[in-house]
């Protein structure tokens, strides 16, 4: 349906712009992904078709929704791709760069329309000119000259052709709301049209389904329009193989031959060779007007749901879990023998609630490929800029993690990859001199292990230089010594402002990256480890929790209060002997197997007025954060359970030392402890630095 027809039918297409923007983004991503995977020397025909279809779909959708400016570049792109896939011109790596540039320009236009902001018309014009020049350069033949007539706004050559168009739609075309009448009207606008229909009835008319389409059409069209103009009309109605356009070269009038249907018409060889299963735009939009339709007979593997709806559902299930916990708590005080049925039912409710929570939480899980897919292009361009040869390998792209994590892990990973490119990998000459292959490798690996997501960024470069790092640390006044292990030395690079780069490039080297990376990862409840071997390369491992919405925690008591300690931070718990507790430099420590670990009394940290004060009467929960240990002193260990994390900032305010809160079964609120933050607060207090107001008192 064209915009004019939509207007005529009083259909407001603006309400569907969001769908177009989303679909367009996906097509652009697909285009980029396929372009980057193309072998310039021998491009895969299926890949070329995929790129062509993506460009074609963007152009078609843009035209329908009134974003005509987006059709200019896509049309030129489509024309060039058409010539390449029809072997009229050879493919080259310069085309990859140009097509990527064209994709960027279309993305810029898309962003402009989506956000209602102006964009650079100059960029659009530059890319259009480059594409047109390439088209003209390869269009020395008559066929290419004819293509110039296709360009929107260009002068049309009056080449009138007589075409036979065979249209064999899917059975569900009527049910999808596709109006064949409209397609015919649009064909009539292109020239003189004759139509012939053939209905292939089932043997037994009792099996006839009036809602299904048993008709195939043969259109005889005398027109100046191009094949692309005709395909545009059928963009939402026909897959590539369902529309066959051939030029009739015979002179004279003749009866229009009916389509050859033994059910479906014969398909030409070239159509067969390019037969791939395309994806029609907007088919999945259930709210689209009848003209867009929906593939009711197709197996739908997914539906689109807004993030806010998914989050709302997760929140409500979280509340359900809390309510179920409350019921369980109440039931604990009821005689299980007298009320056996009630207890059994509550147990069943607990099981059902956990299952529901697990299912709902999986909605938030998205594959890490959403992040990884940005790196092929980045690596390609940065490698070219640095004059290095680099191969990027990715594994485990299907590993799923919480959507909230995906958004926050992108920047840290980007910095790590840029660092690999800039500092990790050597130049081609240096690699050859070191008897290595000229092409350096960066590997991105994602996997799930024990309820955590593990992301590795690995390079086979020169590895970290221990001496250089130690020297730099000393220069910057960071405590360091030759006695430090390699692992401890590697951790020095996370210090603020630390960089051993000789020069600052626009890629990296300002020293403001790794400390931010560490902070960002820790803010997500994650950890970073580094392994490196001189001459062989470096591996940086990021470990993240699976989800930000629920947590496995240990409930601890301090006075009348309860806190939740994340299980993944806990090493062990113990009751200290008197002789194990010492004071060292004004700080209380406990001797655990020969190691003196600082004691963090929760009562003091949160300024509580009751609770155990004598360390020997309390319980120590040993925690380990990035290699740093502490003994958190509590009154009692209560229970281990999975809790729903509620945001303090959203519901109250930021509380230093707390990562969030949860509602317990008895309805009380318990703070979820942010162990790294607690460590830092305690250090600041102990060494007399500024304390956060309200929650922490000075150590008397």
């Amino acid at each position, binding site marked *: 349906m064209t915009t004019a027809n939509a207007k005529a039918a009083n259909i407001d297409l603006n309400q569907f712009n969001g769908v177009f923007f989303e679909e367009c983004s996906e097509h652009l991503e697909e285009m980029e992904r396929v372009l980057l995977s193309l072998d310039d020397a021998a491009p895969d025909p299926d890949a070329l078709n995929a790129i062509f279809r993506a460009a074609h779909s963007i152009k078609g959708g843009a035209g329908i929704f009134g974003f005509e400016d987006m059709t200019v570049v896509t049309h030129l792109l489509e024309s060039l791709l058409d010539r390449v896939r029809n072997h009229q011109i050879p493919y080259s790596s310069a085309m990859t760069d140009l097509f990527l540039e064209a994709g960027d320009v279309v993305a810029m236009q898309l962003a402009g329309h989506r956000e209602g902001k102006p964009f650079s018309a100059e960029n659009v014009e530059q890319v259009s000119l480059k594409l047109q020049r390439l088209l003209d350069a390869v269009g020395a033949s008559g066929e290419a000259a004819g293509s110039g007539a296709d360009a929107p706004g260009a002068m049309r050559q009056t080449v009138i052709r007589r075409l036979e168009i065979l249209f064999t739609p899917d059975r569900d075309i*009527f049910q999808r709301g596709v*109006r064949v*009448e409209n397609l*015919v*009207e649009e064909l009539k606008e292109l020239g003189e049209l004759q*139509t012939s229909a053939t*209905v292939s009835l089932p043997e037994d*008319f*009792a099996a006839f389904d009036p*809602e299904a389409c048993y008709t195939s059409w043969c259109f005889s069209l005398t027109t100046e329009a191009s094949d692309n103009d005709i395909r545009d009309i059928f963009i939402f109605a026909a897959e590539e193989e369902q529309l066959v356009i051939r030029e009739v070269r015979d002179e004279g009038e003749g009866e229009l031959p009916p389509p050859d249907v033994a059910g479906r018409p014969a398909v030409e060889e070239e159509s067969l060779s390019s037969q791939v299963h395309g994806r029609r735009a907007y088919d999945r939009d259930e709210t689209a007007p009848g003209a867009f339709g929906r593939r009711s007979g197709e197996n739908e593997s997914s539906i689109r749901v807004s993030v806010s709806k998914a989050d709302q559902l997760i929140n409500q299930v979280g509340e359900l879990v809390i309510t179920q916990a409350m019921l369980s708590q109440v039931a604990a005080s009821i005689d299980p023998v007298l009320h056996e049925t009630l207890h059994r039912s509550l147990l069943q409710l607990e099981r059902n609630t956990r299952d529901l929570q697990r299912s709902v939480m999986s909605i938030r899980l998205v594959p890490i490929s959403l992040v990884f897919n940005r790196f092929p292009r980045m690596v390609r361009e940065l490698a070219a800029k640095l004059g290095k040869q680099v191969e990027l390998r990715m594994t485990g792209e299907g590993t799923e993690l919480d959507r909230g994590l995906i958004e926050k892990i992108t920047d840290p990973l980007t910095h790590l990859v840029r660092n690999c490119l800039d500092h990790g990998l050597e130049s081609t000459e240096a690699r050859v001199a070191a008897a290595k292959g000229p092409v350096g490798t960066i590997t991105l690996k994602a996997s799930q292990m024990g309820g955590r997501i593990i992301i590795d960024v690995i390079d086979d470069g020169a590895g970290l230089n221990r001496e250089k790092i130690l020297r730099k640390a000393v220069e910057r006044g960071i405590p360091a010594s030759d006695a430090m292990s390699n692992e401890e030395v590697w951790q020095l690079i996370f210090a603020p402002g630390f960089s051993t780069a000789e020069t600052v490039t626009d890629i990296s080297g300002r020293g403001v990256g790794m400390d931010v990376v560490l902070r960002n990862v820790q803010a997500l409840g994650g950890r970073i480890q580094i392994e490196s071997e001189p001459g062989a390369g470096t591996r940086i491992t990021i470990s993240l929790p699976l989800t930000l919405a629920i947590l496995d925690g240990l409930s601890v008591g301090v006075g009348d209060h309860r806190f939740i300690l994340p299980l993944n931070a806990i090493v062990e718990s113990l009751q200290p002997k008197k002789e194990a507790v010492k004071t060292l430099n004004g700080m209380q420590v406990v001797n655990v197997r020969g190691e003196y670990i600082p004691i963090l009394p929760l009562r003091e940290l949160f300024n509580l007025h009751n609770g155990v004060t004598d360390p020997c009467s309390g319980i120590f929960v040993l925690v380990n954060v990035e290699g740093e240990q502490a003994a958190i002193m509590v009154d009692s260990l209560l229970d281990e359970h999975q809790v729903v994390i509620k945001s303090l900032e959203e519901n109250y305010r930021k509380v230093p030392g707390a990562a969030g809160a949860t509602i317990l079964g008895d309805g009380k609120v318990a703070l979820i402890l942010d162990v790294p933050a607690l460590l830092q607060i305690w250090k600041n207090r102990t060494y007399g630095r500024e304390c956060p107001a309200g929650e922490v008192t000075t150590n008397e």
Partner: protein
Amino acid sequence: MGNTNETSFLALGGEWVITVINQQLQCLMGHRKTMLSEMACDAREGTSAAPGGAVTLDMSRVEALDASGCQLLASFVQVMRRDGVKAGVAEMPASFSELFESLGYHRVLQAADQAYEDA
């Protein structure tokens, strides 16, 4: 419907569009069943001078028509002719006639006519 040697007129009405097309099929199937049973009866009794009969679909009261409606009409005509009944449409409003033709279904009727004549 009367004697199968005479032309029967079947008055169609209502909307012949995708949303209600199933109902229209039921209506046509009912009439087809009646016609076929009458034909069988005539054949057994030897009362018909010539086999078959004719039915004309009167479309003067049809209120709406789309591609699915055109397909159903063309299909019904085709199947009736396959059954040995000469079927045709008449009194089609000009706009519907235009639609029928623009969608190419008039050729279906022509082909069915030819098949009937050849039989």
